[in-house]
């Protein structure tokens, strides 16, 4: 582990807070779906908590992210508030998008979450545009585009990375390689030895990193974000992780290797990091237990508020289609 790059205590604990928030949010989300209180299409980010947590502590609120349907971890790490998030998941008028976007289209500019797309690969070209605006305006913002391993095989990936490199855009491409694209093992459809190698085709740095190692992920993200902010151009980060659950809620993942999956779950990065924090004296058991309890309550309250919130009025169908 990059000792030189160990962040300060506050940052280390903040990363854990984000990871815990994501993990607990996922656990409660799957519970409310399971017990029928909130039927929704849901793509669990469980197992991928470290990546956006380590990325986001290197970003300011003003920095932008573009994420995908599997994105609650990215959103929460960036600061999308629980109440509005849950109200949107529940399709209520008080949601981030008034209930019109839903799980696959959560948007919250106030926290820098500019886009959640349901189209594989489409977070990248749009992230370029946000970065282009920052470059032209000189506002110093950095944009992070999140996407999956499967998305690295679609045309938009190629066009976006080439353009970002040609224009030296302040953007970081974070590929969350969770080993599967829906039901398909990524090696089966991806001809690259590793996705990071594709950076060669754009003369941009391409790094593969253990996306479940908070310090390694933090270091890789920091380097890429600093590079982008300094005007030196984009970076492709391939963050290796593992999808703990099926592609979408309800998918019993018969196609997944059971041993590999249980091994990955046994190596759950969140408790592992928790133990490390305590062992290294960065945080006390009590402090973290406290935090966990608090987060669990906030999520539970957000869910209750959301389920009690009003539905959008049908007239909303005709609003926000075109500028009033």
């Amino acid at each position, binding site marked *: 582990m990059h000792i030189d790059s160990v962040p300060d205590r506050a940052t280390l604990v903040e990363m854990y807070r984000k990871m815990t928030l994501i993990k607990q949010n996922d656990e409660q989300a799957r519970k409310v779906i399971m017990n029928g209180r909130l039927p929704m299409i849901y793509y669990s980010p469980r197992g991928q908590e470290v990546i956006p947590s380590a990325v986001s502590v290197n970003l300011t609120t003003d920095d932008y992210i573009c994420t995908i349907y599997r994105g609650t971890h990215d959103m929460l790490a960036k600061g999308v508030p629980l109440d509005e998030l849950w109200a949107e998941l529940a399709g209520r008028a008080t949601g981030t998008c008034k209930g*019109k976007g839903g799980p696959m289209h959560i948007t919250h500019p106030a926290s820098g979450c500019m886009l959640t797309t349901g189209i594989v690969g489409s977070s990248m070209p749009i992230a370029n545009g946000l970065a282009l605006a920052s470059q032209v305006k000189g506002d110093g913002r950095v944009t992070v585009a999140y996407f999956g391993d499967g998305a690295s095989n679609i045309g938009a990936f190629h066009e976006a990375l080439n353009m970002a490199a040609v224009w030296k855009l302040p953007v970081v491409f974070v590929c969350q390689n969770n080993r599967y694209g829906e039901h398909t093992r990524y090696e089966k459809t991806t001809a690259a030895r590793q996705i990071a190698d594709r950076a060669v085709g754009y003369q941009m740095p391409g790094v593969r990193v253990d996306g479940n190692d908070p310090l390694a992920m933090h270091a890789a993200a920091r380097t890429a974000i600093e590079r982008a902010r300094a005007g030196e151009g984009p970076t492709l980060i391939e963050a290796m992780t593992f999808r703990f659950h099926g592609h979408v809620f309800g998918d019993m993942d018969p196609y997944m290797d059971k041993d590999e999956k249980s091994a990955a779950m046994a190596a759950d990065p969140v408790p592992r990091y928790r133990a490390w924090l305590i062992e290294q004296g960065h945080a006390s058991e009590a402090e973290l237990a406290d935090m966990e309890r608090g987060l669990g309550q906030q999520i539970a309250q957000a869910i209750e508020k959301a389920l009690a919130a009003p539905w959008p009025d049908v007239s909303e169908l005709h609003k926000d289609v075109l500028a009033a």
Partner: protein
Amino acid sequence: MTSEAKNMNTVVALNTALAEAMELDSGVIVFGEDVADPEDGGVAYVTKGLSTRFGDARVRSTPISEQAIAGAAIGAAMAGMRPVAEIMMMNFSTVAMDMLFNHAAKLRFMSGGQTRVPITIRMATGTGLSTAGQHADYLEAWFAHAAGLKVVTYANPADAYGLLLSCIFDDDPCIFIENFLSYGQSGPAPVPGQRVPIGVAAVTRPGRDVTVVTYGPQVAPALKVAEKLAGEGVQVEVIDLRTISPWDKQTVLASVARTGRAVISHEAVRAFGVGAEIAATLQEELWGTLKAPVRRVGAPSCPVPYSRPLELAFAPGEAQVEAAIRATLG
């Protein structure tokens, strides 16, 4: 054999059609994201069992690359095969639109008939699952506007089976539209081998007072409304178009010539939709015969919303069809 069962759901019907087509012709190959058995035979299991039965060469899970998927289908078809490519959801077809519009639809014409593109592109869509703005659009009007393509959809498992077989063995590129909610719906099992011809509509319910022209998921509500109005002595004729392009003008014109009244209903956005073409044709060809203006039922001009009450209000249903019928009855 499932196909001999009294009832069959749409997934089994489609799966059976694919298996029979592959059995009949070694040129039939199937590919798309997750379609092979190691990938669980597709996200909706429409292709389940095919790779095990026909091998990895003829049934392939692909990268997430719709342009490459469509291109592979087009090229293989030009070389004499009959590829059936899956582009999971209709909204994703926009990624492959150059391949479908600039190439598949035009190569026969641009080559002066030297090359042909007998492909079937399967894609699903439809509201009802709260998949929101990027997973539920109906774009059949786009494909119908593209000369050189055939556009087909179904309203029951037997037609799903019979139409898919016809598309696979048709010598033109066919856009085969599946409705996601229909997958689990059952109906009378198809007669094995019985194909449903492309270009021929079905008069699903005869009636003398007003004609409802519809297709896909809008057929069921139309039939319900017809049943209800029958109680009031209003006889509604329901036509299931089945082929959207080229549509069965003859059947539709004959019906409306008799009833003098027509309603066209589809889930797609009403404005600039398929209903417009049919309405425009009817008023032109049946001028003087129509007893009332042709009414159109379709979704409002907005993206598909997420929130349940909004989604329910977005997709047209019995209420809208009934209102339109009553309006034509004046």
